């Protein structure tokens, strides 16, 4: 249907922007306090592995989207059921990101502005973007995602004078458990969320590039999360970091000389925008594929409207938001992010090996997947 093609750089930046998304404000792995860097490293490795699974699925089922793979592997009824669940998951994810964005803006900058207005206007832009197609999304991320890195580096560099480099001591004060918990949380958020990209991977113009793009982007995001974590803990100290609602905002206030608060809005808006638009795009396309509608653009408006309403509906206050994303989200995400993809991977393998008569060919496929 859609013959759009995106280049590997575009996919890389799209993926990176997606993973970056709202990670900064929610600060996953923060439960491990000053050991979060360990959690980030572990979680990054695990996340890369998980994303490798997604890439392997995409490589084993070339030019098929998630809905098509599910239908093929799980049959019509089962496939449709899981697909509908996945659609719900994508929509939910998009609305959570919207809520994060709105919550941040409303808490920090526009205290008197209704959140619905902020989120609604943001959604309008997202609809415009999603309706422009995946190519334009790729091109836009090519333009804007580098800005995120720029902002993060600028803030980090300008804070170099006000930091205390011993703040992350002592190591493993509370044992390994919080670290493992944090790592697990980090795998499901943000890395596992990239399961959405099974709807985007088929658009890549050179399929084999996927093997490079996915790990590179996971590595870059891990590095940036790590950088941001160290920056924040050096500047704020572990206690204040754990207590603050939105860490990067607090950090931005500490710059000597001037206040760079709006820059945080920029990163959040770009990252969140990429994440949200990919989710809405994926939801709309998946829905259209199982319903047999040709053009997903017809439904983006409705889905986005629903996302906006859902984002207001989903939490009563900011604490509920933090509680959900820390305690419930990882478990809730498990089936969507890990169980279904692993099942798909297994089924793809089996089909591949039974299909091909030559052993060598199946061996090759395994090797390809083993690379992850």
């Amino acid at each position, binding site marked *: 249907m859609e013959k759009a093609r995106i*280049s590997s*750089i*575009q996919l890389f930046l799209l993926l990176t922007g997606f993973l970056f998304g709202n990670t900064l404000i929610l600060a996953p792995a923060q439960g491990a306090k000053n050991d979060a860097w360990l959690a980030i490293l572990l979680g990054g490795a695990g996340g890369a592995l998980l994303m490798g699974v997604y890439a392997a699925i995409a490589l084993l089922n070339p030019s098929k989207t998630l809905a098509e793979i599910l239908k093929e592997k799980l049959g019509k009824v089962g496939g449709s059921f899981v697909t509908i669940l996945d659609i719900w998951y994508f929509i939910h994810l998009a609305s959570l990101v919207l809520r994060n964005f709105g919550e941040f*803006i409303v808490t920090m*900058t*526009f205290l008197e*502005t209704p959140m619905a207005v*902020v989120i609604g*206007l*943001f959604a309008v*832009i997202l609809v*415009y*973007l999603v309706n*422009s*197609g995946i190519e*334009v999304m*790729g*091109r*836009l991320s*090519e*333009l*804007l995602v580098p800005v995120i890195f720029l902002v993060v580096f600028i803030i980090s560099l300008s804070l170099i004078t006000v930091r205390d480099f011993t703040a992350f001591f002592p190591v493993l004060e509370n044992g390994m458990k919080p670290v493992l918990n944090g790592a697990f949380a980090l795998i499901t958020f943000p890395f596992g969320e990239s399961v959405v990209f099974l709807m985007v991977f088929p658009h890549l113009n050179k399929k084999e590039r996927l093997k490079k793009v996915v790990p590179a982007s996971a590595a870059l995001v891990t590095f940036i999360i790590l950088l941001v974590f160290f920056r924040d803990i050096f500047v704020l100290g572990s206690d204040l970091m754990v207590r603050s609602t939105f860490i990067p905002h607090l950090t931005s206030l500490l710059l000597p*000389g*001037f*206040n*760079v*608060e*709006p820059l945080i*809005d*920029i990163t959040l*808006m*770009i990252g969140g*925008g990429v994440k949200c638009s990919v989710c809405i795009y994926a939801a709309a396309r998946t829905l259209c594929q199982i319903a047999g509608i040709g053009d997903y653009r017809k439904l983006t408006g409705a889905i986005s409207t629903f996302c906006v309403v859902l984002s207001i509906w989903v939490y009563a206050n900011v604490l509920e938001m933090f509680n959900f994303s820390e305690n419930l989200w990882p478990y809730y995400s498990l089936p969507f992010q890990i169980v279904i993809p692993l099942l798909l991977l297994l089924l793809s393998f089996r089909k591949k090996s039974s299909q091909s008569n030559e052993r060598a060919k199946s061996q090759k496929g395994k090797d390809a997947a083993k690379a992850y």
Partner: protein
Amino acid sequence: MTGECDMRYWANCKWVKKMTEISKRKKTRNQNSDANTCLDSYEPIPKTIEEVTKRLNEVFSDCSDFMQRKISCGKYGMISILVAYFDGFVDKRVLNQDVIRPILDVFSNTELHECPGLYDRLKEYVVINNDIDDAEDMGQAVDGIVSGDAVLFIEGEDRALVIGVKAPQGRQVEEPDTETSIRGAREGFVENLLTNTTLIRKRIKNPNLKLEMMQLGEQTRTEVCVCYIKGIADDNIVRDVKERLKKLKTDAVLDTGIIEQHITDNRLSLFPMVGNSEKCDKLAGKLLEGRVAILCDGTPYVLTVPYLFIESIQVTDDYYDHAFFATFMRLLRLIALLFSNMLPGLYVALVSFHHTVIPFKLLITLAASRQGIPFSPIVEAALMIVVFELLREAGVRMPKPIGQALSIVGAIVLGEASVSAGITSNLMVIIVATTAVCSFIVPPLIRATMLLRFAFLAAANFLGFLGILFVAVAVFIHLCRQRSFGIPYMTPFSPLTTSVLRDSFVVVPFWAMVTGRGHQKYAGGASKQNTGR
């Protein structure tokens, strides 16, 4: 002639009416111009000069500048030759020297009564002029006359000679006012199409430089020339350009601006999707980059397609100057572009929302300057910008001497007095002035910035910095989804095209660019590098 003739023009002429009646094609007269004119043009040329004169007088009734001269030659004045042309349109001296004098010289004493080879003799060795064509029927003959040629009708022949003796018209080649440069050629295009094509040929001496002519505009039938370098320009784009031009249905093509509006990809976009220039060296550079140019008779502005966003901040001087300086200027222009769009919006956002961002001392200054101003920042800004745009427009439309007075009024009365009257803050005057200065730095985007400025202003007043961000992202999305003749509008940046990136915000020296002259193809797939030059 492309067959797209002007039917209403013909329809007004009596003889055409008569002819159409004869051919019983009344029905199609006002609808199908093709069929109509084709039929008309096949009207044979009468053999006798009297009849020709009569017809011509019918066709060109009430045309006071239509001239006919009858030459009787041969020893007994037996041979009549009729020269028909538009006065002023043809160069009379050339006509006399190259056509009439030789005819008189050769035939005045010849004892020819009726020579069968007269037409060919005239064509081959009597008329000196090079530009000779046959007119097989009346239509072609009339076409020749209206396009400034002289037409020779000969007694007893059903053909006519069309002789190009067009008088050179219009101004001399001079430096264009709109695109002045510090270095580089001073030659600009003129209104005459032939002069313009010559100027291009002069720069690119290469048979691969193709100039394809067509006529557009049902009333005006303007000569339009599609120009490209075969082998460098993408064939698909050339084809696309020609197709779009052929589809163009309009009465009048008075300027390339009209063509631009018809062939542009997105007519609603504020951003230019078609470039224009009146500088020869710039156009040559564009052609060498693989672009297609559209020239039009009667205007010095030449269109180039595809047009990319980055071209707005490129200036020919960049290529002639030191690369570091050029890079600096590019960045400066980019900053100017941002400023001219966002500065008033940013100011409003800062003053009405983000007080925490402003350093304390500056905040005091700002607050002090805003003390006692009756308007809110947005109203103040909008007022000042509108006043500035009024001044600018007045400055453009007014005769130059009055412009002086205008600038004094603008500077003193509106700037100085409005501040001391306490209607605007002096900071706002600075902001608007800076914005105004910046908006002149990137002329191709001037209309986009003019309107976007208000969008940013309104958004800033609504949601502060966030509003500005929203609008900015929307503009970015808009830019990203545009294509100019198939090429994504933001090309060197997204999709990232590393080879072209050397000529984006950064200008690398020529020797570091891929092709010799420093011109790059605008998009990927620059495989067809160059022609034998």
